[in-house]
């Protein structure tokens, strides 16, 4: 790995990267273009790369169809579920990283298995569950559902980050006069901040993108943007321009976030997790 790669291999690597970028970006670019097209251009039988752009789709859906509160809902759901995930998951991960107790690894694996079932398989139980709780069709249901499936991810990633911090650091804090909890909150958490941030961003992205549970658990109040999109599929045809406009707005925060924390995110998903 330390040896510089030979020239043909470098060229090949660039070629692979180029293909990957084209494959990944073309649909996105197409959606960006679509969000600025009128109906005629959208349905042109030969796809148009050049056209007279229209800004009508955005106000039409966000103001005309009153979709802007959905963006607020998405934000509220993602932020609260992320906050909950970190608040519950980070201490749990810390315990997994530091303490030994019978059945620890089994319990850890059990947390992971909650991510292994196909989401649809627990959709109906989840629906019944929230109905029984009287939370169906509320924003709380979505927040709790998202928290429950992101929690395992937090525990999994953060365990590695905490394990990277030497045990003596906690002990030094305890000897310096902190309680166990104090050492965790005031010394370990700040040291794990980059990892925590990366984990939080990942939680945020997953919650923001989530469609299935949100779609099943809320119909009107508390709908996030993702659930709003199917509403644009009308009996009179799909409003592709508006779908694209919503999709662009829905993806923007993720693009921004990923650029901000991509370094930590890669680290979090490789080093930290593997070590855990």
């Amino acid at each position, binding site marked *: 790995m330390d040896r510089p790669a030979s020239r043909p291999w470098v060229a090949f690597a660039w070629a692979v990267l180029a293909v990957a970028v084209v494959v990944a970006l073309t649909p996105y670019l197409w959606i960006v273009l679509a969000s600025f097209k009128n109906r005629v251009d959208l349905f042109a039988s030969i796809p148009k790369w050049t056209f007279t752009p229209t800004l009508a789709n955005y106000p039409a859906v966000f103001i005309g169809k009153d979709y802007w509160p959905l963006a607020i809902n998405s934000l509220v759901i993602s932020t609260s579920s992320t906050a909950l995930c970190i608040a519950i998951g980070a201490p749990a991960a810390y315990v997994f990283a530091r303490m*030994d107790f019978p059945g620890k690894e089994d319990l850890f694996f059990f947390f992971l298995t909650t991510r292994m079932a196909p989401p649809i398989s627990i959709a109906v139980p989840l629906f019944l569950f929230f109905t029984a709780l009287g939370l169906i069709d509320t924003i709380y249901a979505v927040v709790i559902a998202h928290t429950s499936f992101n929690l395992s991810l937090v525990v999994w990633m953060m365990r590695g980050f905490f394990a990277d911090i*030497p045990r*003596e*650091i906690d*002990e*030094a*804090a*305890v*000897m*310096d*006069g*902190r*309680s*166990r909890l*104090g050492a965790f909150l005031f*010394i370990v958490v*700040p*040291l794990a*901040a980059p990892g925590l941030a990366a984990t939080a961003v990942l939680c945020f992205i997953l919650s923001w993108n989530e469609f299935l549970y949100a779609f099943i658990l809320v119909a009107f109040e508390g709908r996030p943007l993702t659930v709003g999109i199917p509403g644009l599929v009308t009996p009179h045809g799909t409003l592709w321009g508006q779908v694209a406009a919503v999709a662009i707005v829905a993806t923007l925060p993720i693009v921004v976030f990923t650029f901000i924390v991509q370094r930590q995110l890669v680290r979090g998903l490789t080093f930290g997790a593997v070590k855990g």
Partner: protein
Amino acid sequence: MDIVFEGISKVFPDGTAALHGLDLAFETGEFIVLLGPSGSGKTTACRVLAGLENPTGGRILVGGRDITALPPRLRGIGMVFQNYALYSHKTVFENIAYPLRVRKIPRAEIERSVKAMADLLQIGRYLNRKPGQLSGGQAQRVAVARALVWQPDICLMDEPLSNLDALLRLHMRTELKRLHRELRKTFVFVTHDQEEAMTLATRVAVLRDGELVQFDTPQTVYRKPASRFVAEFMGRPAMNTFDGAVAGGNFRAAGFDLPVTGLPDGPITLGIRPEQIELVDASAADAVVFEVDVVDHVEPDMLIFARRGASGLIVRTPNGTRGPEHGALLHLRFPSGAMHAFDAKTGQRL
């Protein structure tokens, strides 16, 4: 005020027994060194005193008060860790100030205490740096400053010098001795290095397999080792020991005989330190003859490794007297006052 380990036992959850009813008591202001090979329980004993481990049996008393159940923060004990354990996201100043901040000491006083402690340890210039920008020796000083800045009664050091290179280790050793003299706190120092124990300690506690083997001043431990184990552990090169048997005033080992007095008949282990063996002329009557194997020059001395039959020994003598060749015959005298006798089975001093 004194510090007492009263029958301290520690069995870890995985079944490892680190301490078996350790009894140890020392005075305030002492420099106590816990010495032993790895697995002797010295670090565990230190961590039990710190409160980082809960003993599975026994009590810890400080000044007559039972502190066994107290959390570390209420024990008034500071600690220096082997790998320094500095907070890498804080500056050196904030690292040292941390115990004071936790205790909500007024800002001006923190400033004053940190400065004073930093000056004492000669790290005043680095207060604005982050730990990552320090050398090993500087990081070690910061760790010591942090452990002492809040004036704890007791300061624990768990192998604090073992991550430093040889020269720096020697230097820090002197520094610690000076620090102890100036601060007059109780220092408890864990090490496997007998030289550190010899130079630093007011008293050395030698541990082996979770038990206290000997607890005395370094000089006594060196001159009157309580057992064969201590004898071989203290002093480099190690004490020469010979397994054999006494019969009628004559000690017979594998390969040579030695006249002895005042020892009962039966199997016994005799020991003598390499520097106490005398080189004598071939004409000397009571000389034992060994054959030179290897000579090491450790200026200003030389170490002669010699053999006789199945027995081997090391002689330490000033260099330049004679430079024996491989295979040359050495005439040695074992002064009877320098001989140590140990029970052949238990290894206890007789």
